[in-house]
């Protein structure tokens, strides 16, 4: 099984456990479809969609408002806290694009960066630092 699919399968299986902390993200995404494209080290791509408060595999026929792109390395870096989302976006590691223009969406970028910073505050409060 490709590396990125293994990674995503494992994360999706534990997303329920993190549901309360992810509420802010879910509220932001209410009613919208965003696609997350994760590219693995072996070149394999997994397309996920964020809809209805859950992250699922995308079918490919969705009509998203935004597309988020990153490599699996960046995905892990952000999840682990090794890389800040805002930093990843400015360095071009994590792209938030408007599906209609195909270019970066600044407002969405600022919105997600702020949400990430608020959530990170919550997570670091309860999780022991490494």
């Amino acid at each position, binding site marked *: 099984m490709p590396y990125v699919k293994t990674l995503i399968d494992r994360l999706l299986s534990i997303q329920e456990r993190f549901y309360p902390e992810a509420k802010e993200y879910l509220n932001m995404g209410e009613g919208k479809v965003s*696609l997350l494209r994760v590219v693995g080290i072996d070149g394999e791509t997994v397309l996920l969609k964020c809809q209805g408060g859950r992250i699922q595999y995308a079918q490919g026929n969705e009509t998203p408002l935004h597309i988020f792109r990153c490599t699996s390395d960046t995905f892990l870096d952000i999840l682990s806290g090794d890389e800040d989302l*805002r*930093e990843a976006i400015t*360095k*071009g590691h994590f792209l938030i694009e408007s*599906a209609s223009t195909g270019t970066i969406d*600044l407002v969405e970028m*600022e919105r997600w960066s702020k949400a990430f910073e608020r959530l990170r505050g919550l997570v670091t409060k309860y999780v022991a630092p490494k």
Partner: protein
Amino acid sequence: MAHETPLYKKILNPNTFIKLMLMKRIGIVSGKGGVGKSTIAASIALALASKGFQVGLVDVDVTCPNVPDILGKSELEITMDDRFAPSIARGVKYVSIGQIAREGNPILWDPKDLRSAAKQLLERTEWGSLDYLVCDFPPGFEAETLELLPLMDCILIVTTPSALSRSKVERMVEAAREFQIPVLGVVKNMSYFECPSCGSRHRIFAEDHSFEELGIPTIAEFPLNSKIANEKCINDFPVEAFLEALKHPVLLKKRPKSLRRKLLELIFKVKR
């Protein structure tokens, strides 16, 4: 995969377009970096605001923003309709990518994203009704400049009076001719050093260029001094001279077509 947007949504929102067209859009440009363009842009905005005008300042230099270093790095708020609420400092509304990117983090985006980001800073900010919108451009002809320069009502060229700078001013003047954008004039920055003890002026650059032969007036000349460097803006910017120049910007005519060229046009029209 991408969502097919109807054409009417792809063009600028009519409300935004009308608001942008009603305000006087002034581009502050330079042919090279390090001439003090952002300092001049902020100084102009602050001077206009001090005269009671409604002024906005947009930092179009996406890869090297300077405006937050001058006016303050406050967080950008997002309005209910997905737009930026500009920060306000000393009566000037301003917005910059420097308020989104973390200090020390480079912006490493594709040129298409740089153009889009610059455009979004201008169009997706809730400016309200402004008398003047001052746009601080990156030096030279970056992607952001090519995207937004045609939208300006006029430009002001900032330069230092060095031999290297002269050709850059000429290029900027030619660009203004190409885009048919009126030029207010030139501001010569770091033009001389004034001795704090005796007050004598020393020209730092041996040559002191006038740009009159290009048809461009010199609006103002500023010294190299620690006060400006420390305060990061010129508190006594000559706003009256600037407002006077705004009344009579110079629109450089495109080169006239030669007789041979007109003849060819005639021939091809007849052939058709």
